[in-house]
């Protein structure tokens, strides 16, 4: 028999929004001292429902990389990293030791053709600024920067065909 164990798990979003839960016996959830009755239900029409104290939402777990989750709730995307207080503190410490920040990669959201590149290596860009023009599904789409920083590397060339998920540009 396993012994009872309670641990704290903290979910941190992209904008540092933070939710802290206690989890007992791996399945009893509490949030701000309130008990949560949580169920993940596969319904017969193919949907997954997250039920929390009777509140039901259609959800999807889109991807998981270690403790990083991309999920959809009601069709809206959210990103959360799940950590224990210990790992959270360690990551904070690591971040403070490496002030240069980490490299963000801009990847292609779909297969297409690079019509134009609007930035150069070394250039400073703002979050939301267009980086390049990708033609897909007969439409020209601007690929926007997801972060503010400096363009480190441009890994594609004009007129190149790229696959979904291909790295286009690295920003630091």
């Amino acid at each position, binding site marked *: 028999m396993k012994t009872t164990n309670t641990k704290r798990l903290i979910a941190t979003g992209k904008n540092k929004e933070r939710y802290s*839960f206690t989890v007992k016996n791996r399945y009893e959830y509490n949030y701000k001292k309130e008990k949560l009755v949580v169920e993940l239900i596969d319904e017969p*029409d193919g*949907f997954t429902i997250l039920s929390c104290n009777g509140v039901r939402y259609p959800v999807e777990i889109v991807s998981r990389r270690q403790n990083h*989750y991309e999920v959809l709730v*009601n069709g*809206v995307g*959210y990103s959360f990293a799940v950590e224990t207080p210990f790992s959270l503190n360690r990551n904070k410490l690591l971040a403070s030791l490496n002030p240069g920040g980490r490299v963000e990669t801009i990847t292609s959201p779909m297969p297409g053709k690079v019509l134009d590149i609007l930035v150069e290596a070394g250039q400073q860009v703002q979050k939301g600024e267009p980086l390049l023009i990708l033609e897909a599904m007969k439409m020209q789409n601007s690929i926007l920067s997801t972060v503010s920083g400096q363009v480190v590397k441009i890994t594609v060339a004009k007129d190149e065909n790229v696959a979904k998920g291909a790295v286009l540009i690295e920003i630091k």
Partner: protein
Amino acid sequence: MIQSLLIANRGEIAIRIARTARRMGVVVYAVRTKKEPDALYLSAADVVVDFPDTELPVSEFLDIGALVKLAVDNEIEAIHPGYGFLSENAGFAAACKKAGVIFIGPPADVIDAMGDKIKARAYAMESGVNVPGGSKTPLTSVDEAKTLAEKIGYPVIIKATAGGGGRGMRIVSIPGDMQLMFSQATSEAQNAFGNASVYIEKYIENPKHIEVQIVADNHGNVIHLGERECSVQRKHQKLLEEAPSPALDSRLRKKMTSAAVALAKSIKYKSLGTVEFLLDKNGDFYFMEMNTRLQVEHPVTEMITGLDLVELQILIASGAKLPVKQQEVKFQGWAIECRINAEDVQAGFVPSMGIIRGIRLPQGNNIRIDTGVRPGSEITPFFDSMVAKLIVHADSRAEVIEKTLKALRQFHVKGVKTTIPFCKAVLHNPLFRSGYFDTSFVETAMDSPVHREPQEEFLAALLSVYAQTHNTTPITSDEVQIDPWVLKKRIRNF
């Protein structure tokens, strides 16, 4: 009366056309292509014919010769082109006529006149409708564009002569941008329409986009079915439409609908058509273009008039007189259409490709859903990313907004991201609710492109923690892997 009909289209519009045609007792033929041999629209037809093997690198629904031959070989009386593809192609209409097949739409010369946007401007002026200042002939060079722009004053808009639907359009605010925009517009026009020719017009800043539905029979009768409000756009792509428009009073409505009818009469228009106008802040309106086909957003007009526009098209093409007179057209209540596209709104509206794993449709009276997909359908780069149209009807604008929101909360798609959260955000927006919005709305008035229901973020955090605790495997994944749905389809087809 037409007895058989080939639908030269796919997806939701093929189903929507088949529904009316079959109701009228017309035998409906649909075209099966290699790209989607088990698409939903095929099940809406009485007969499915296979598109023949060809060497041409052209899309099936753009292949005039093959489509006309299909109709002739199968002794089908008429062809309905739907929207997009060959729906505004004068050559297609002419080829049909030559082969003895009824083309459901206006005659080739009328399509041609309205398809050439510069000619269309001239016809509009002739019939007394305002047009924005601009080109009388296609532009031959950037310099010519610059000279004309100086004359009519910046900002100006570059448009494709053969264009429509926002493609090949660029706004130029300062002379220095003209070079880049001119080349982008011509290349996009070439890609989209096979014709690089462009022209410029005075750019009406932040207008409303209002369009008037007209119907004309072959006996000289022309009526209008009121206007549609299409100002909720992004990059000239309509996202949410309504009828009537909250911006029109009865005086302005009378002026705009009369102008549309006058234009249709002056060019001897036949069949269904839409006259698009730009309405500026002073209440002045300008002719933008005329679409000589069924529009994506036609259902809102059907909801408020109780008329079936496809039925009217088929009746007119059969040579019948219009079954209703202008004064018999009754406008009742308010209707909204939401375009549910497979797009990742949070990533800047990029297409979200993948397989539809589940669909939950809202239920209720006066809720209509036009869709061409079912669980297992794939959203591919071959075709547009429309998943469904949700059309809701109620007594008043306030009621239809609430009712549409309720329907959207019950509308779920699994497998791809959709514009449902975007449509919710539009309907919650105070400016949209006020009615005083224009075509700049999406880009300037929305704090967030998605609406988040209460508790959503908290539940997303909880779901992440739950998944971590249970080592849940992702249902979908970024990784390249063989998907059971795809595998199933492969096994079936090869």
